[in-house]
């Protein structure tokens, strides 16, 4: 199992702030493509991925128990 955290516009499009799903043997890119298929209206392509609170590149391999977050372009400050 992995947790996928959603924020801002992505969260609002999907209507949830967290999805729990089977997984833990795919890359971030594979997860991203699956989510884009499941939720075609949500702007995943604009979001950076973070695993366990650190930004990761798209070829990062997710392990079971990981918390993946999709980070839309930030606008703090």
């Amino acid at each position, binding site marked *: 199992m992995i947790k996928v955290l959603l924020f801002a516009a992505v*969260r609002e499009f999907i209507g949830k702030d967290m999805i729990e799903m089977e997984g833990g043997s795919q890359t971030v890119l594979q997860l991203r493509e699956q989510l884009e298929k499941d939720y075609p209206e949500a702007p995943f392509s604009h979001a*950076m991925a*973070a695993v366990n609170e*650190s930004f*990761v590149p798209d070829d990062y391999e997710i392990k079971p128990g990981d918390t993946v977050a999709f980070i*839309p372009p*930030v*606008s*703090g*400050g």
Partner: protein
Amino acid sequence: MKNFLLTENPISAEEVIQKVARREAGAVTVFIGTVRELTNGKRTLYLEYEAYKPMAEKMLEKIGEEVKEKWPEAEAAITHRTGKLDISDTAVVIAVSSPHRKTAYEANEYAIERIKEIVPIWKKEFWEDGSKWIGDQRETAAYPDGRPPEGMLDQ
């Protein structure tokens, strides 16, 4: 007393300033980001800031480490607010102390630029005629290369 944190309560600039006070400091610079009413003629009613809190605090700490690396004599503290903010409310306070003022200005400006790059906080603007998530503060395309901006991945 943590130097890098998120809060849902009003921020006291004085409190953030006190965190960097020390006998070696000759200069403290402070940046206070406030909610302004007009942006390109459009009237803001209020804002909401959402954050991925644990990661946002980690990224603020990372900015503090970057500051220390670039300006070893500088000491930084940052508090960012989340939740609903009204016009003139303080969204963020950055305080930097240093023996010398040039360093204090440079490190402070660096910190606000980095906040706008790597800290997972999102602003939703509520205008008279609707609302929108702001995702393009730096007025560049979002991750135009499909890669995070420089420095995002070097943990």
